[in-house]
């Protein structure tokens, strides 16, 4: 077998390991199941009546925001899972084996892609139950999901980089909250940016979460990619191109010390 097929079979082995972990500790899925359900229900039921958005029903507007927020958290959460692994002895075993070493990381990020897909499926169903109408059609909806997963995958690699540096996984949780929460609120996730003060709207309109959210919203609701789609893809690819090699490098540095 060639290098690529070894890498692939080792990655599958690592995904299998991660899935067994999930099976044995289902709590590992709470962040991509319970939390997004709560968000969908709380925002649509509590704020739905108070917030007016142009042209569409608030729940339909809201869903793109909740999708991307959940994907962003799930992506960055990779760092916690990796940091946990690094604290235990298993990585030493992997490093003494004639396996493809990068598959430890690709196994991690691909598993987290599966987690993100599960989250989207659950939110989609719950959203439909409370009034989400993806009127854009099937193909644009699939394209929207593809874009979200690409964005989440890129963030997973930022998670790999962060998880390789940090020694205390618990501390990471706090940092993730402190960074991702403000970014989702200062975006078009829950309200149109036009309702913000000018200076804040200026930032909100240009940050990557808004771009991804706007593209997903446009695709799912109108079927058109809209002006945000290209910048959203470029941001995601940009994150990936930088964070993938950086993550691999930081992981190697951490484990060969």
């Amino acid at each position, binding site marked *: 077998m060639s290098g690529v097929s*070894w890498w692939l*079979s*080792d990655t599958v*082995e690592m995904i*299998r*390991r991660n899935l*067994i*972990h999930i099976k*044995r*500790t289902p709590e590992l899925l709470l962040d991509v199941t319970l939390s997004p359900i709560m968000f969908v229900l709380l925002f649509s039921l509590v704020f739905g009546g108070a917030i007016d958005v142009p042209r569409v029903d608030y729940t339909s507007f809201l869903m793109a925001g909740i999708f991307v927020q959940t994907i962003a958290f799930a992506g960055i959460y990779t760092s916690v899972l990796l940091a946990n692994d690094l604290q*235990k*002895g*298993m990585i*030493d*075993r*992997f*490093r*003494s*084996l*004639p*396996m493809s070493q990068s598959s430890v990381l690709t196994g991690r990020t691909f598993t987290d892609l599966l987690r993100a897909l599960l989250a989207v499926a659950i939110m989609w169903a719950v959203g439909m139950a409370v009034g989400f109408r993806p009127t854009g059609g099937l193909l644009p909806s699939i394209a929207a999901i593809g874009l979200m997963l690409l964005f989440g995958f890129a963030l997973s690699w930022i998670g790999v980089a962060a998880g390789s540096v940090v020694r205390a996984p618990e501390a990471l949780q706090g940092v993730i909250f402190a960074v991702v929460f403000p970014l989702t609120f200062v975006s078009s996730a829950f309200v149109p940016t036009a309702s913000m003060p000018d200076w804040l709207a200026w930032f909100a309109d240009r940050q990557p979460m808004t771009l991804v959210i706007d593209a997903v919203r446009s695709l799912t609701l109108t079927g058109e990619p809209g002006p945000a789609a290209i910048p959203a893809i470029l941001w995601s690819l940009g994150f990936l191109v930088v964070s993938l090699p950086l993550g691999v490098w930081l992981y190697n540095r951490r*484990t*060969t*010390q």
Partner: protein
Amino acid sequence: MTRAMIEAVGLHKSFGDTHALAGLDLDVAEGTILGVLGPNGAGKTTAVRVLTTLIRPDAGHATVAGIDVVRQPAEVRTRIGVAGQYAALDELLTGLENLLMVGRLYRLDSRVARQRAMALIERFELGDAANRPVKTYSGGMRRRLDLGAALIAEPPVIFLDEPTTGLDPKGRLSMWELIADLARSGTTLLMTTQYLEEADRLADDIAVIDHGRVIARGTASDLKRQVGGERLEITVDNPAFLGAARLVLEALGSGPSHVIEDERRVTVAVTAHDGVLTRAIRELDSAGVHVDDIGFRRPTLDEVFLSLTGRPAEETVGIES
């Protein structure tokens, strides 16, 4: 001479100001066991981590099965099995799942991996626990499973870092049997330990290391000759007798005696067993020394260090959890 399956020349490795390895030289001939004996902090784990490609040395050169560990780590990894000081197992996977995963990552065919995993589970008496997550295992079971993971690909070179530290006497004995089996199968093995008895029992050759350097090297009997074989130890019933007891023992032993006043104890190294005990009892009696306890015991690592370096092993030699 048989070829060296493990060879290290002048290895250096520092962590900040700590010189964990300070010019370490080792060689292990094919099919033999080298016991690397040293107290906590001597550099044993660091040496194993360099030789198993986990960390790079700052200077020096090492080969395993003739392959350079720094330049061709991937090649080295196909030929080694490692059981580290702390078991490297996945806590959430079962014992069987751990072995299968490691087997497949060694590129064994799935069927072969399963056959070998089942055989190892049988041989290591893990049958009842094979389908339970490792987090439910005792320390001894973890160590055995970890050794199983090191053996599943039947690599020609095995590294064991303190394989019995922290085990109860029963666990230690069963681990010793497994290691002795390995030795008979012709595997080349490097094993670290803090226990002279363990090295004596299992290893063909012993390297004593201290501060990242080898300070003595030879067979167990060479080493015992150097440190003066067994100890004759007596406990007197009154500290007043210590002086007289000391004179008697020094006349019988092969070196200076060692007195521990608080415990009313005198120890001396002896080279031969024959008649020493009866002579000691007779002469102590005629010197009017009242003895509480008398007997032979093997030298401890501390005494080996005392004889070799003229000072005690610096860090406490204790059982880690």
